[in-house]
């Protein structure tokens, strides 16, 4: 993680760098702080979506217009951020996609099929071709930041799938930009068929509920866009 923070500081010297510590008990916060990042220390574990919304709210409160999410495991290369930012000129939400021609990240089996189906459905919802919908490497423009600060879902898988659907249904423009993903520093994606089935089920459920949720549940109070 320190490596990621240092890379971000080096690649984007003008950007603010925020690390969200989702209730960990180790020295994450102190270490990130020493590396030059602002650290949002959640008092207990809120999950990925929870940590994410906290980050968006921080951005909104501190008048940041644009938020780029980068995983702390080193998968995402901060050098790609300018490309995402460039794409933000014509979109509210830009996804860094790993299947779009760059990089050699590979998933196999049912998980791969699940991701394909998800990609197809979400492309339709977003009215834009998306191939890697579970990518956590995203840049959000002012409109998406306001939306996510209020409505980033805390549910499991909500952080990727549901957030996309919410953005699409709130009429944000979504685009993807091909990026190379690096191997993760920690943890490997599982190939266990049972886990894959559970993943598929939960992803499907998250998707269905995101689609049938009334629009009023994710309206932004003072949105001027």
């Amino acid at each position, binding site marked *: 993680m320190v490596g990621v923070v240092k890379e971000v500081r080096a690649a984007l010297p003008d950007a603010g760098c925020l690390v969200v510590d989702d209730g960990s008990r180790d020295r994450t916060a102190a270490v990130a702080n020493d590396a030059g990042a602002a650290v949002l220390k959640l008092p207990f574990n809120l999950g990925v979506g929870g940590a994410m919304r906290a980050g968006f709210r*921080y951005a909104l409160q501190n008048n940041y217009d644009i938020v780029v999410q980068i995983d702390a495991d080193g998968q995402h290369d901060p050098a790609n951020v300018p490309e995402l930012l460039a794409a933000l000129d014509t979109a509210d939400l830009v996804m860094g996609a790993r299947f779009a021609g760059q990089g050699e990240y590979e998933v196999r089996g049912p998980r791969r099929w699940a991701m394909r189906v998800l990609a197809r459905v979400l492309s339709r919802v977003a009215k834009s071709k998306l191939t890697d919908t579970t990518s956590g490497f995203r840049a959000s423009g002012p409109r998406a930041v306001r939306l996510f600060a209020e409505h980033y879902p805390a549910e499991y898988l909500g952080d990727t799938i549901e957030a996309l659907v919410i953005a699409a249904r709130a009429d944000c423009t979504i685009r993807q930009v091909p990026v190379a993903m690096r191997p993760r520093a920690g943890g490997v994606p599982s190939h266990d068929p049972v886990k894959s089935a559970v993943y598929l089920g939960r992803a499907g459920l998250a998707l269905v509920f995101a689609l049938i949720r009334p629009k009023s549940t994710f309206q932004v109070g003072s949105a001027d866009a």
Partner: protein
Amino acid sequence: MTPTSHIFAVAAALAILLVVVEMLRHRRLRERHALWWLLAGTLALIVGIFPGTLEWAANVIGIEVPINLVFFVSIAILFLVCLQHSSELTKLESKTRRLAEETAMQDLRIRELERRLAGHSGD
């Protein structure tokens, strides 16, 4: 219905009502949560005192064995209470989430201010 079972039914209903009212009195239960239990206790009391009402109600709805109406109503009330609790839990979770975000942000601001303050006194 034997006199003993009659007394037993009334006593049980009264016991439920007594517990709920006591808890309300001592603020160990809020009105909004007590509503279902009060309703259940009152129904049980009415049926306990006048068993005829149960037979009449079962007859009106078309249930042949009156006790089945008791089971149905009991399960329905328990189900609704559970549902209400799940919904309250969801609300509470989203409130704690908000509080957690709020404390984290204030914590960050305090640390930032302390850092700046330390910088000033160092100059």
